[in-house]
């Protein structure tokens, strides 16, 4: 079933996963929850639509990435439906939108002409978006990061959208030999974006932007000295920021000594750690644990809820899916002859992977906690949409030089 040439998408297995999860949730309350079964139907429909679209337009698409993204969304949808059914509904809508965007991006990106020279466009749009948030944004959870559209009932997080323009801008600036002022502009753009994010208190995004910039810069320019010195300057800036910003001090203290203030600063970290292990290797069972004791359990700390209810093994498998995405993304980037496409594939992979590392590192106390989301898994419209677009970029670069496309072009 679902056989496409020699490569299978394994959608039938993913459908089984959805059905088992939702069927279980249907029996959770004393009244039979038919909505959960409707959801499993919607999920199977989603998989079926993907299967048709891939067969029709994307025969060469990278299978492991599609499988990994689908599994991450499956886990996310099931756990979110268990936590708050309304969030589960909204997330399903975002996921459906996300998949459509991913396939559209995958098809359209390779056909656009001259995208490797429009660095002004990318930098301008990125800066405009960040400035709009900075001026008009409302503060949510300590970070002035959101634009609330109350008429539509949703909030957007423009710092997420700017991630794409960051990847495009830095890739286009550093993909070939350009005049020196262009390089300077690229660096200045990154610095201003990071500064705006730090001022808006979104330190996680600032860290993410800088690390991704370093990755793309080194991949494009291959200069170890410059990269290392930039990294050194960053370490220096981070060290100074510890003394300048009390917010940074709070984060670092909570990371190093969470138990010295278990009810306030260390609360989220401690609750997260305890919740993660309280499920054991196989989890306490969907709906049986108590994941709601952890703050932000549906956005940043959703990994905790997954580990508690579905087990540490499931947590490891999720990390494994992210590793698959990273591995395939880097493979795709290495195969490219055109350096712009290689850089955007690599930049998108780096962005998703570094973001995952930063938030998981914060949850697991490898590094201070920051307020960014787990791609594809956390609840959040902007986060999911942008993650899908980034995956779409990777897929589009991956299927770029396929023999089919070249047959169309001919000599």
């Amino acid at each position: 079933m679902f056989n496409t040439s020699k490569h299978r998408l394994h959608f039938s297995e993913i459908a089984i996963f959805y059905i088992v999860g939702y069927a279980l949730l249907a029996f959770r309350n004393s009244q039979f929850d038919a909505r959960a079964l409707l959801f499993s139907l919607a999920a199977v429909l989603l998989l079926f639509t993907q299967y048709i679209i891939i067969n029709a337009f994307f025969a060469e698409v990278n299978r492991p990435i599609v499988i990994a993204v689908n599994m991450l969304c499956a886990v996310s949808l099931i756990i979110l439906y268990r936590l708050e059914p309304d969030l589960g509904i909204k997330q399903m809508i975002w996921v459906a939108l996300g998949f459509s965007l991913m396939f559209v991006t995958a098809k359209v990106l390779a056909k656009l002409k001259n995208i490797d020279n429009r660095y002004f466009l990318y930098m301008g749009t990125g800066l405009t978006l960040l400035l709009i948030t900075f001026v008009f944004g409302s503060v949510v959870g300590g970070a002035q990061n959101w634009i609330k559209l109350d008429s539509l009932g949703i909030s957007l997080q423009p710092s997420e959208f700017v991630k794409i323009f960051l990847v495009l801008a830095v890739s286009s600036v550093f993909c070939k030999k350009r005049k020196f002022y262009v390089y300077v502009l690229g660096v200045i753009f990154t610095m201003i974006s990071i500064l705006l994010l730090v001022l808006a208190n979104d330190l996680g995004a600032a860290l993410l932007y800088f690390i991704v910039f370093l990755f793309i810069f080194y991949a494009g320019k291959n200069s170890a000295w410059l990269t290392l010195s930039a990294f050194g300057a960053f370490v220096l800036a981070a060290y100074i920021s510890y003394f300048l910003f009390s917010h940074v001090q709070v984060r670092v203290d909570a990371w190093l000594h969470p138990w010295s203030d278990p009810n306030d600063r260390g609360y989220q970290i401690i609750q997260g750690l305890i919740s993660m292990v309280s499920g054991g290797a196989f989890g306490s069972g969907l709906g049986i644990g108590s994941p709601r004791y952890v703050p932000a359990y549906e956005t940043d700390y959703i990994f905790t809820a997954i580990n508690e209810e579905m087990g540490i093994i499931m947590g490891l498998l999720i990390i494994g899916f992210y590793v698959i995405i990273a591995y395939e993304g880097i493979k795709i980037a290495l195969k490219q002859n055109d350096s712009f496409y290689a850089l955007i594939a690599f930049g998108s992979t780096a962005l998703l992977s570094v973001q995952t590392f930063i938030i998981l590192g914060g949850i697991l106390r490898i590094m201070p906690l920051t307020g960014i989301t787990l791609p594809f898994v956390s609840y959040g419209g902007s986060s999911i949409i942008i993650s899908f677009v980034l995956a779409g970029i990777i897929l589009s670069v991956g299927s770029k030089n396929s023999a089919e496309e070249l047959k169309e072009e001919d000599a």
Partner: protein
Amino acid sequence: MAKKCKMYYYNSMETHIYILLAMIGRYILILVCFLIFVAALLEIRKAAQSKKPLNPASLKWNRGKAIFDLRHESIIGRSKKCNIVINSPFVKRYHLRILEDCGEWVIIPYKDTKVYLNKQFIDDRTLLTDKDVISFGKESMVFMLSTEMEEAQNV
């Protein structure tokens, strides 16, 4: 004697059944997820294996003094999108393809290109044999099967 139940605030029969179902369900969910993960890994391995041809071969380019190891399918031309890029104005953007079909190597010129195999003009799919000379756009390459390569190195 009252039996102490772990979740003492659940006191209905349906909930006890659900707890049982959930405890079984967690193993099923993990198992299915694990199988999908392994399947994805196998897909990666499959893709890696299919790029290596069953019957290894390479092209020796005299002018550039280079030896190209041929992949399962190689596209040769002036365009940077090709697998083997020849930067010469006499070579078309996409000039010819060489691919392996179940162990047999085949050369397929693109439309409106001049490709010569052993000084004979070819315009369609043609089987390649060892030491064939492929000429196109003032370039010439020798097609070599890998076993011959190793012998040449040993000599």
